[in-house]
Protein backbone atom coordinates (compact mmCIF):
# COMPACT_ATOMS: atom_id res chain seq x y z
CA UNK A 1 0.00 0.00 0.00
CA UNK A 2 2.71 2.45 1.02
CA UNK A 3 4.70 1.49 -2.04
CA UNK A 4 1.70 2.21 -4.26
CA UNK A 5 1.18 5.63 -2.68
CA UNK A 6 4.83 6.51 -3.06
CA UNK A 7 4.77 5.46 -6.71
CA UNK A 8 1.68 7.56 -7.37
CA UNK A 9 3.27 10.58 -5.70
CA UNK A 10 6.44 10.24 -7.75
CA UNK A 11 4.36 9.93 -10.93
CA UNK A 12 2.52 13.13 -10.05
CA UNK A 13 5.77 14.99 -9.50
CA UNK A 14 7.11 13.69 -12.75
CA UNK A 15 4.03 14.96 -14.56
CA UNK A 16 4.14 18.38 -12.96
CA UNK A 17 4.82 20.88 -15.69
CA UNK A 18 6.60 24.17 -15.51
CA UNK A 19 6.51 26.38 -18.56
CA UNK A 20 9.18 28.85 -19.59
CA UNK A 21 8.70 29.82 -23.20
CA UNK A 22 9.70 32.92 -25.11
CA UNK A 23 7.97 33.86 -28.35
CA UNK A 24 9.14 36.67 -30.68
CA UNK A 25 6.47 39.25 -31.47
CA UNK A 26 6.17 42.27 -33.71
CA UNK A 27 4.47 45.61 -33.11
CA UNK A 28 0.70 45.50 -33.37
CA UNK A 29 0.39 42.06 -31.86
CA UNK A 30 -2.04 41.76 -28.96
CA UNK A 31 -1.73 39.42 -25.99
CA UNK A 32 -4.82 37.52 -24.89
CA UNK A 33 -4.52 35.53 -21.67
CA UNK A 34 -7.20 33.43 -20.05
CA UNK A 35 -6.55 31.56 -16.82
CA UNK A 36 -9.39 30.10 -14.79
CA UNK A 37 -7.66 30.59 -11.47
CA UNK A 38 -4.40 31.62 -9.88
CA UNK A 39 -2.53 34.71 -10.87
CA UNK A 40 -1.73 36.52 -14.07
CA UNK A 41 1.25 38.79 -13.44
CA UNK A 42 2.43 40.84 -16.38
CA UNK A 43 5.58 42.91 -16.48
CA UNK A 44 7.43 44.57 -19.32
CA UNK A 45 10.88 44.49 -20.83
CA UNK A 46 12.71 46.07 -23.75
CA UNK A 47 12.58 43.06 -26.08
CA UNK A 48 10.04 42.42 -28.82
CA UNK A 49 9.20 39.06 -27.35
CA UNK A 50 6.77 37.53 -24.89
CA UNK A 51 8.02 35.24 -22.16
CA UNK A 52 5.53 32.98 -20.41
CA UNK A 53 6.47 31.26 -17.18
CA UNK A 54 4.12 29.16 -15.11
CA UNK A 55 4.29 27.59 -11.73
CA UNK A 56 4.27 23.81 -11.49
CA UNK A 57 1.05 22.08 -12.41
CA UNK A 58 0.26 18.45 -13.08
CA UNK A 59 -3.32 18.80 -14.24
CA UNK A 60 -3.15 21.91 -16.39
CA UNK A 61 -1.47 22.64 -19.67
CA UNK A 62 -0.36 26.12 -20.70
CA UNK A 63 -0.90 26.60 -24.40
CA UNK A 64 0.62 29.43 -26.40
CA UNK A 65 -0.69 29.98 -29.87
CA UNK A 66 -1.00 32.72 -32.42
CA UNK A 67 -4.00 33.63 -34.50
CA UNK A 68 -3.90 36.70 -36.71
CA UNK A 69 -2.77 39.65 -34.65
CA UNK A 70 -3.30 37.94 -31.31
CA UNK A 71 -0.96 35.86 -29.23
CA UNK A 72 -3.11 33.59 -27.07
CA UNK A 73 -2.09 32.10 -23.77
CA UNK A 74 -4.57 29.59 -22.41
CA UNK A 75 -4.53 27.38 -19.36
CA UNK A 76 -6.30 24.15 -20.23
CA UNK A 77 -7.12 21.41 -17.78
CA UNK A 78 -5.75 17.99 -18.69
CA UNK A 79 -8.41 16.30 -16.60
CA UNK A 80 -10.96 17.15 -13.93
CA UNK A 81 -11.88 20.63 -12.80
CA UNK A 82 -9.78 23.60 -13.84
CA UNK A 83 -6.64 24.13 -11.82
CA UNK A 84 -5.12 27.25 -10.32
CA UNK A 85 -1.98 28.23 -12.20
CA UNK A 86 0.26 31.21 -11.63
CA UNK A 87 1.45 32.83 -14.83
CA UNK A 88 4.35 35.26 -14.99
CA UNK A 89 4.33 36.96 -18.36
CA UNK A 90 6.87 39.46 -19.68
CA UNK A 91 5.87 41.57 -22.65
CA UNK A 92 7.11 44.59 -24.62
CA UNK A 93 5.59 47.72 -23.13
CA UNK A 94 3.73 48.63 -26.34
CA UNK A 95 1.70 45.44 -26.34
CA UNK A 96 -2.07 45.58 -25.90
CA UNK A 97 -3.22 43.25 -23.15
CA UNK A 98 -6.47 41.34 -22.79
CA UNK A 99 -6.41 39.40 -19.51
CA UNK A 100 -9.25 37.38 -18.03
CA UNK A 101 -10.03 34.75 -15.47
CA UNK A 102 -12.48 33.65 -12.81
CA UNK A 103 -10.59 32.94 -9.56
CA UNK A 104 -7.75 35.03 -10.84
CA UNK A 105 -5.70 37.90 -9.46
CA UNK A 106 -4.41 40.12 -12.23
CA UNK A 107 -1.49 42.51 -12.03
CA UNK A 108 0.25 44.55 -14.69
CA UNK A 109 3.33 46.70 -14.27
CA UNK A 110 4.95 49.05 -16.73
CA UNK A 111 2.70 48.78 -19.77
CA UNK A 112 2.14 51.65 -22.17
CA UNK A 113 -0.54 49.98 -24.25
CA UNK A 114 -4.28 49.38 -23.91
CA UNK A 115 -5.33 47.02 -21.14
CA UNK A 116 -8.48 44.99 -20.62
CA UNK A 117 -8.71 42.90 -17.46
CA UNK A 118 -11.69 40.99 -16.14
CA UNK A 119 -12.01 38.61 -13.23
CA UNK A 120 -14.71 37.40 -10.87
CA UNK A 121 -13.02 36.53 -7.58
CA UNK A 122 -9.77 38.39 -7.75
CA UNK A 123 -7.98 41.67 -7.36
CA UNK A 124 -6.89 43.76 -10.30
CA UNK A 125 -3.89 46.03 -10.00
CA UNK A 126 -2.51 47.84 -13.02
CA UNK A 127 0.34 50.32 -13.22
CA UNK A 128 0.50 52.03 -16.59
CA UNK A 129 -1.63 51.71 -19.69
CA UNK A 130 -2.91 54.03 -22.39
CA UNK A 131 -5.74 54.19 -24.87
CA UNK A 132 -8.63 52.18 -23.52
CA UNK A 133 -7.90 50.81 -20.07
CA UNK A 134 -10.84 48.73 -18.88
CA UNK A 135 -10.66 46.85 -15.59
CA UNK A 136 -13.50 44.88 -14.06
CA UNK A 137 -13.83 42.57 -11.07
CA UNK A 138 -16.93 41.29 -9.31
CA UNK A 139 -15.58 40.42 -5.88
CA UNK A 140 -12.18 42.03 -5.90
CA UNK A 141 -10.86 45.54 -5.66
CA UNK A 142 -9.61 47.39 -8.71
CA UNK A 143 -6.61 49.71 -8.62
CA UNK A 144 -5.15 51.65 -11.52
CA UNK A 145 -2.09 53.88 -11.39
CA UNK A 146 -0.36 55.96 -14.02
CA UNK A 147 -2.70 55.39 -16.95
CA UNK A 148 -3.63 57.76 -19.77
CA UNK A 149 -6.65 57.64 -22.02
CA UNK A 150 -10.16 56.32 -21.64
CA UNK A 151 -10.30 54.67 -18.27
CA UNK A 152 -13.08 52.37 -17.09
CA UNK A 153 -12.81 50.71 -13.70
CA UNK A 154 -15.62 48.60 -12.29
CA UNK A 155 -16.17 46.42 -9.29
CA UNK A 156 -19.27 45.13 -7.58
CA UNK A 157 -18.31 44.35 -4.04
CA UNK A 158 -15.04 46.19 -3.45
CA UNK A 159 -13.38 49.57 -3.79
CA UNK A 160 -12.10 51.00 -7.02
CA UNK A 161 -9.31 53.55 -7.24
CA UNK A 162 -7.57 55.49 -9.95
CA UNK A 163 -4.36 57.23 -8.96
CA UNK A 164 -2.02 59.51 -10.89
CA UNK A 165 -3.85 59.03 -14.16
CA UNK A 166 -5.32 61.25 -16.87
CA UNK A 167 -8.02 61.16 -19.51
CA UNK A 168 -11.70 60.31 -19.37
CA UNK A 169 -12.62 58.28 -16.34
CA UNK A 170 -15.60 56.08 -15.56
CA UNK A 171 -15.41 54.45 -12.14
CA UNK A 172 -18.19 52.40 -10.67
CA UNK A 173 -18.95 49.94 -7.91
CA UNK A 174 -21.98 48.89 -5.89
CA UNK A 175 -20.66 48.16 -2.44
CA UNK A 176 -17.40 50.04 -2.10
CA UNK A 177 -15.77 53.39 -2.39
CA UNK A 178 -14.52 55.20 -5.48
CA UNK A 179 -11.27 57.09 -5.09
CA UNK A 180 -9.84 59.23 -7.86
CA UNK A 181 -6.62 60.70 -6.55
CA UNK A 182 -4.07 62.88 -8.32
CA UNK A 183 -5.97 62.46 -11.54
CA UNK A 184 -6.19 64.94 -14.39
CA UNK A 185 -9.42 64.22 -16.16
CA UNK A 186 -11.53 66.13 -18.64
CA UNK A 187 -14.48 63.87 -17.97
CA UNK A 188 -15.35 61.92 -14.85
CA UNK A 189 -18.26 59.70 -13.93
CA UNK A 190 -17.82 58.13 -10.50
CA UNK A 191 -20.69 56.16 -9.03
CA UNK A 192 -21.38 53.85 -6.15
CA UNK A 193 -24.45 52.75 -4.26
CA UNK A 194 -22.98 52.03 -0.86
CA UNK A 195 -19.71 53.90 -0.43
CA UNK A 196 -17.88 57.18 -0.61
CA UNK A 197 -16.65 58.96 -3.70
CA UNK A 198 -13.63 61.24 -3.80
CA UNK A 199 -12.17 63.25 -6.65
CA UNK A 200 -8.82 64.91 -6.10
CA UNK A 201 -7.45 66.59 -9.18
CA UNK A 202 -7.82 69.66 -11.31
CA UNK A 203 -11.28 70.60 -12.57
CA UNK A 204 -10.52 71.53 -16.16
CA UNK A 205 -12.26 74.30 -18.08
CA UNK A 206 -14.95 72.71 -20.21
CA UNK A 207 -14.68 69.43 -18.34
CA UNK A 208 -17.57 67.37 -17.02
CA UNK A 209 -17.48 65.80 -13.60
CA UNK A 210 -20.20 63.71 -12.04
CA UNK A 211 -19.89 62.12 -8.61
CA UNK A 212 -22.79 60.19 -7.15
CA UNK A 213 -23.58 57.86 -4.30
CA UNK A 214 -26.67 56.62 -2.60
CA UNK A 215 -25.37 55.94 0.90
CA UNK A 216 -21.96 57.53 0.92
CA UNK A 217 -20.20 60.86 1.18
CA UNK A 218 -18.80 62.79 -1.75
CA UNK A 219 -15.59 64.79 -1.55
CA UNK A 220 -14.49 67.10 -4.32
CA UNK A 221 -11.13 68.78 -3.99
CA UNK A 222 -11.39 72.26 -5.46
CA UNK A 223 -8.25 74.27 -6.12
CA UNK A 224 -8.14 78.05 -6.09
CA UNK A 225 -9.01 79.46 -9.50
CA UNK A 226 -11.34 76.65 -10.50
CA UNK A 227 -13.98 77.60 -13.05
CA UNK A 228 -17.03 75.43 -12.63
CA UNK A 229 -20.80 75.40 -12.54
CA UNK A 230 -21.62 73.13 -9.65
CA UNK A 231 -25.00 71.45 -9.17
CA UNK A 232 -25.58 69.79 -5.82
CA UNK A 233 -28.44 67.42 -5.04
CA UNK A 234 -29.26 65.35 -2.02
CA UNK A 235 -32.36 64.01 -0.37
CA UNK A 236 -31.30 63.44 3.17
CA UNK A 237 -27.67 64.49 3.21
CA UNK A 238 -25.61 67.53 4.05
CA UNK A 239 -23.44 69.99 2.19
CA UNK A 240 -20.18 71.35 3.54
CA UNK A 241 -17.58 73.59 1.97
CA UNK A 242 -14.15 74.71 3.07
CA UNK A 243 -14.79 78.03 1.38
CA UNK A 244 -17.81 80.27 0.94
CA UNK A 245 -20.02 79.74 -2.08
CA UNK A 246 -22.80 81.95 -3.35
CA UNK A 247 -25.85 80.01 -4.40
CA UNK A 248 -27.23 81.06 -7.75
CA UNK A 249 -30.17 78.74 -7.81
CA UNK A 250 -31.99 76.91 -5.07
CA UNK A 251 -34.61 74.41 -6.08
CA UNK A 252 -37.20 72.46 -4.25
CA UNK A 253 -35.71 69.91 -1.91
CA UNK A 254 -32.02 70.01 -1.19
CA UNK A 255 -30.93 71.03 -4.64
CA UNK A 256 -28.90 74.05 -5.44
CA UNK A 257 -26.18 75.28 -7.71
CA UNK A 258 -23.43 77.82 -7.69
CA UNK A 259 -20.68 79.08 -9.91
CA UNK A 260 -16.97 79.14 -9.29
CA UNK A 261 -14.97 81.55 -11.45
CA UNK A 262 -16.26 81.56 -15.01
CA UNK A 263 -18.29 78.38 -14.48
CA UNK A 264 -16.67 76.68 -17.45
CA UNK A 265 -16.69 73.11 -16.18
CA UNK A 266 -19.88 71.26 -15.34
CA UNK A 267 -19.80 69.55 -11.95
CA UNK A 268 -22.66 67.41 -10.66
CA UNK A 269 -22.59 66.17 -7.10
CA UNK A 270 -25.40 63.86 -5.99
CA UNK A 271 -25.69 61.86 -2.81
CA UNK A 272 -29.04 60.57 -1.66
CA UNK A 273 -28.17 60.51 2.01
CA UNK A 274 -24.50 61.32 2.38
CA UNK A 275 -22.52 64.46 3.00
CA UNK A 276 -21.27 66.40 0.00
CA UNK A 277 -18.01 68.18 0.73
CA UNK A 278 -15.93 70.70 -1.14
CA UNK A 279 -12.41 70.91 0.21
CA UNK A 280 -9.26 72.74 -0.68
CA UNK A 281 -6.15 70.76 -1.71
CA UNK A 282 -3.79 69.73 1.02
CA UNK A 283 -3.87 67.69 4.15
CA UNK A 284 -7.31 67.27 5.64
CA UNK A 285 -8.21 67.12 9.27
CA UNK A 286 -10.63 64.33 9.97
CA UNK A 287 -13.63 65.41 11.98
CA UNK A 288 -12.82 62.88 14.67
CA UNK A 289 -9.47 64.56 15.20
CA UNK A 290 -10.93 68.05 15.58
Amino acid sequence: MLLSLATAALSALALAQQIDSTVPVERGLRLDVNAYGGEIAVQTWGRNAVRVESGPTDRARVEISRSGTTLDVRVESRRGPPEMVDLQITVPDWMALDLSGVYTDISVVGTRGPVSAETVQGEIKVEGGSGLVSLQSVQGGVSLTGAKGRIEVHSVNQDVEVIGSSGEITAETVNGSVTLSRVDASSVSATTVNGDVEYDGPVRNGGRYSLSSHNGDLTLVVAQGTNASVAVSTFNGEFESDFPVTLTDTRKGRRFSFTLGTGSAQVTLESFQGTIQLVRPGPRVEKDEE
Partner: protein
Amino acid sequence: MTEHWTDRLSDYLDGDLPPAERTALEAHLSGCAQCAEDLAGLRRVVTRARALEDRAPAGDLWQGVAARIGARRAPRRFSFSMPQLAAAGIALAAFSGAAGWVLNTGVPLEAPVAVTPAPPAMLTPARTAAGSYDAAVADLERVLAQGRGRLDTATVRVLEQNLATIDRAIAQAQRAVATDSANLYLNSHLAATMRRKLELLRQAATLVAAVS
Protein backbone atom coordinates in the same frame (compact mmCIF):
# COMPACT_ATOMS: atom_id res chain seq x y z
CA MET B 1 -25.41 82.81 -22.28
CA THR B 2 -27.13 80.03 -24.21
CA GLU B 3 -25.50 77.44 -21.97
CA HIS B 4 -27.00 79.17 -18.95
CA TRP B 5 -30.48 78.80 -20.42
CA THR B 6 -29.89 75.30 -21.71
CA ASP B 7 -29.36 74.22 -18.14
CA ARG B 8 -32.71 75.68 -17.22
CA LEU B 9 -34.83 74.01 -19.89
CA SER B 10 -35.62 70.87 -17.94
CA ASP B 11 -36.61 72.97 -14.95
CA TYR B 12 -38.76 75.02 -17.28
CA LEU B 13 -40.58 71.92 -18.43
CA ASP B 14 -40.89 70.77 -14.84
CA GLY B 15 -42.39 74.09 -13.87
CA ASP B 16 -39.56 74.58 -11.40
CA LEU B 17 -38.42 78.00 -12.60
CA PRO B 18 -39.36 81.07 -10.60
CA PRO B 19 -41.76 83.33 -12.51
CA ALA B 20 -39.15 85.95 -13.28
CA GLU B 21 -36.72 83.41 -14.66
CA ARG B 22 -39.46 81.71 -16.63
CA THR B 23 -40.40 85.00 -18.26
CA ALA B 24 -36.77 85.70 -19.04
CA LEU B 25 -36.32 82.24 -20.52
CA GLU B 26 -39.38 82.62 -22.71
CA ALA B 27 -38.00 85.92 -23.96
CA HIS B 28 -34.70 84.21 -24.66
CA LEU B 29 -36.41 81.35 -26.47
CA SER B 30 -38.06 83.71 -28.88
CA GLY B 31 -34.66 84.83 -30.10
CA CYS B 32 -32.49 81.75 -29.70
CA ALA B 33 -32.96 79.00 -32.25
CA GLN B 34 -30.56 76.65 -30.44
CA CYS B 35 -32.45 76.76 -27.16
CA ALA B 36 -35.78 76.51 -28.96
CA GLU B 37 -34.51 73.41 -30.73
CA ASP B 38 -33.23 71.95 -27.46
CA LEU B 39 -36.58 72.54 -25.84
CA ALA B 40 -38.34 70.85 -28.74
CA GLY B 41 -35.98 67.91 -28.36
CA LEU B 42 -36.79 67.59 -24.70
CA ARG B 43 -40.49 67.67 -25.48
CA ARG B 44 -39.95 64.91 -28.03
CA VAL B 45 -38.36 62.80 -25.29
CA VAL B 46 -41.44 63.22 -23.17
CA THR B 47 -43.72 62.47 -26.10
CA ARG B 48 -41.69 59.42 -27.08
CA ALA B 49 -41.79 58.08 -23.57
CA ARG B 50 -45.55 58.52 -23.56
CA ALA B 51 -45.76 56.45 -26.72
CA LEU B 52 -43.92 53.44 -25.33
CA GLU B 53 -45.80 50.29 -26.10
CA ASP B 54 -46.47 47.67 -23.50
CA ARG B 55 -44.81 44.74 -25.20
CA ALA B 56 -44.28 41.37 -23.66
CA PRO B 57 -40.58 40.56 -23.31
CA ALA B 58 -39.24 38.45 -26.09
CA GLY B 59 -37.90 35.04 -25.23
CA ASP B 60 -34.38 36.20 -25.95
CA LEU B 61 -34.79 39.51 -24.18
CA TRP B 62 -31.42 39.15 -22.57
CA GLN B 63 -29.53 39.46 -25.85
CA GLY B 64 -31.18 42.73 -26.68
CA VAL B 65 -30.77 44.14 -23.21
CA ALA B 66 -27.13 43.12 -23.17
CA ALA B 67 -26.44 44.69 -26.52
CA ARG B 68 -28.15 47.92 -25.64
CA ILE B 69 -26.64 48.27 -22.22
CA GLY B 70 -23.26 47.34 -23.62
CA ALA B 71 -23.59 50.07 -26.20
CA ARG B 72 -24.07 52.60 -23.43
CA ARG B 73 -20.98 51.87 -21.40
CA ALA B 74 -19.53 55.23 -22.25
CA PRO B 75 -19.71 57.79 -19.46
CA ARG B 76 -23.11 57.70 -17.83
CA ARG B 77 -24.51 60.87 -16.48
CA PHE B 78 -27.66 62.12 -14.95
CA SER B 79 -27.94 65.74 -14.12
CA PHE B 80 -30.11 68.69 -14.63
CA SER B 81 -28.83 69.84 -17.99
CA MET B 82 -31.17 69.38 -20.89
CA PRO B 83 -28.86 67.48 -23.25
CA GLN B 84 -28.04 65.02 -20.52
CA LEU B 85 -31.65 64.67 -19.56
CA ALA B 86 -32.62 64.09 -23.16
CA ALA B 87 -29.86 61.54 -23.67
CA ALA B 88 -30.81 59.77 -20.47
CA GLY B 89 -34.47 59.80 -21.39
CA ILE B 90 -33.85 58.38 -24.84
CA ALA B 91 -31.46 55.73 -23.54
CA LEU B 92 -33.86 54.66 -20.85
CA ALA B 93 -36.81 54.62 -23.21
CA ALA B 94 -34.76 52.67 -25.72
CA PHE B 95 -34.55 49.62 -23.55
CA SER B 96 -38.06 50.04 -22.20
CA GLY B 97 -36.75 50.06 -18.72
CA ALA B 98 -36.76 52.85 -16.25
CA ALA B 99 -38.12 55.55 -18.49
CA GLY B 100 -41.14 55.72 -16.26
CA TRP B 101 -39.59 58.51 -14.26
CA VAL B 102 -39.96 60.89 -17.17
CA LEU B 103 -43.68 60.74 -16.70
CA ASN B 104 -43.74 59.42 -13.24
CA THR B 105 -46.79 60.28 -11.25
CA GLY B 106 -47.60 63.78 -12.13
CA VAL B 107 -44.46 65.68 -12.89
CA PRO B 108 -46.18 69.00 -13.49
CA LEU B 109 -46.09 70.25 -17.04
CA GLU B 110 -47.16 73.84 -17.03
CA ALA B 111 -49.05 75.74 -19.65
CA PRO B 112 -46.11 76.64 -21.93
CA VAL B 113 -45.39 73.01 -22.57
CA ALA B 114 -47.09 72.05 -25.79
CA VAL B 115 -47.64 68.40 -25.01
CA THR B 116 -51.06 67.26 -26.10
CA PRO B 117 -52.92 65.84 -23.15
CA ALA B 118 -53.22 62.13 -23.63
CA PRO B 119 -56.56 60.40 -23.26
CA PRO B 120 -57.01 58.31 -20.14
CA ALA B 121 -56.18 55.11 -21.97
CA MET B 122 -52.76 56.52 -22.83
CA LEU B 123 -52.00 57.76 -19.34
CA THR B 124 -50.22 54.62 -18.31
CA PRO B 125 -46.73 55.02 -19.72
CA ALA B 126 -45.11 55.02 -16.30
CA ARG B 127 -46.90 51.82 -15.55
CA THR B 128 -46.01 50.51 -18.99
CA ALA B 129 -42.33 51.32 -18.66
CA ALA B 130 -42.32 50.02 -15.11
CA GLY B 131 -43.95 46.84 -16.39
CA SER B 132 -41.29 46.43 -19.04
CA TYR B 133 -38.58 47.07 -16.48
CA ASP B 134 -40.08 44.53 -14.13
CA ALA B 135 -40.27 42.03 -16.96
CA ALA B 136 -36.64 42.62 -17.90
CA VAL B 137 -35.57 42.25 -14.28
CA ALA B 138 -37.67 39.11 -13.92
CA ASP B 139 -36.10 37.63 -17.07
CA LEU B 140 -32.60 38.26 -15.81
CA GLU B 141 -33.44 37.05 -12.31
CA ARG B 142 -34.75 33.86 -13.86
CA VAL B 143 -31.45 33.41 -15.72
CA LEU B 144 -29.58 33.90 -12.46
CA ALA B 145 -31.88 31.55 -10.55
CA GLN B 146 -31.52 28.84 -13.18
CA GLY B 147 -27.77 29.23 -13.32
CA ARG B 148 -26.93 29.84 -9.70
CA GLY B 149 -26.05 26.19 -9.22
CA ARG B 150 -23.28 26.60 -11.75
CA LEU B 151 -21.77 29.61 -10.01
CA ASP B 152 -19.51 29.56 -7.00
CA THR B 153 -21.59 29.92 -3.85
CA ALA B 154 -19.48 32.85 -2.69
CA THR B 155 -20.11 34.62 -6.00
CA VAL B 156 -23.85 33.97 -5.74
CA ARG B 157 -23.83 35.32 -2.20
CA VAL B 158 -22.00 38.49 -3.25
CA LEU B 159 -24.32 39.04 -6.18
CA GLU B 160 -27.40 38.57 -4.03
CA GLN B 161 -26.07 40.84 -1.29
CA ASN B 162 -25.36 43.56 -3.81
CA LEU B 163 -28.73 43.14 -5.48
CA ALA B 164 -30.28 43.51 -2.04
CA THR B 165 -28.23 46.66 -1.47
CA ILE B 166 -29.53 48.10 -4.72
CA ASP B 167 -33.08 47.02 -3.91
CA ARG B 168 -32.88 48.90 -0.62
CA ALA B 169 -31.63 51.98 -2.44
CA ILE B 170 -34.44 51.66 -4.97
CA ALA B 171 -37.02 51.36 -2.20
CA GLN B 172 -35.63 54.44 -0.46
CA ALA B 173 -35.60 56.39 -3.69
CA GLN B 174 -39.15 55.32 -4.48
CA ARG B 175 -40.32 56.51 -1.07
CA ALA B 176 -38.52 59.79 -1.63
CA VAL B 177 -40.12 60.22 -5.06
CA ALA B 178 -43.50 59.55 -3.48
CA THR B 179 -42.94 62.51 -1.19
CA ASP B 180 -41.69 64.82 -3.93
CA SER B 181 -42.66 63.50 -7.34
CA ALA B 182 -41.58 66.65 -9.17
CA ASN B 183 -38.01 66.44 -7.91
CA LEU B 184 -35.91 65.78 -10.96
CA TYR B 185 -32.93 64.60 -8.94
CA LEU B 186 -34.96 62.00 -7.08
CA ASN B 187 -36.51 60.73 -10.29
CA SER B 188 -33.21 60.51 -12.12
CA HIS B 189 -31.57 58.92 -9.09
CA LEU B 190 -34.31 56.32 -8.94
CA ALA B 191 -33.90 55.61 -12.65
CA ALA B 192 -30.13 55.35 -12.34
CA THR B 193 -30.39 52.96 -9.41
CA MET B 194 -32.94 50.82 -11.22
CA ARG B 195 -30.65 50.70 -14.20
CA ARG B 196 -27.76 49.75 -11.94
CA LYS B 197 -29.78 46.74 -10.88
CA LEU B 198 -30.33 45.77 -14.50
CA GLU B 199 -26.63 46.09 -15.18
CA LEU B 200 -25.71 43.91 -12.23
CA LEU B 201 -28.24 41.30 -13.29
CA ARG B 202 -26.82 41.45 -16.80
CA GLN B 203 -23.36 40.90 -15.35
CA ALA B 204 -24.67 37.95 -13.34
CA ALA B 205 -26.32 36.46 -16.40
CA THR B 206 -23.05 36.85 -18.30
CA LEU B 207 -21.26 34.92 -15.56
CA VAL B 208 -23.86 32.18 -15.76
CA ALA B 209 -23.45 32.01 -19.52
CA ALA B 210 -19.68 31.89 -19.18
CA VAL B 211 -19.74 28.79 -16.98
CA SER B 212 -22.51 27.02 -18.91
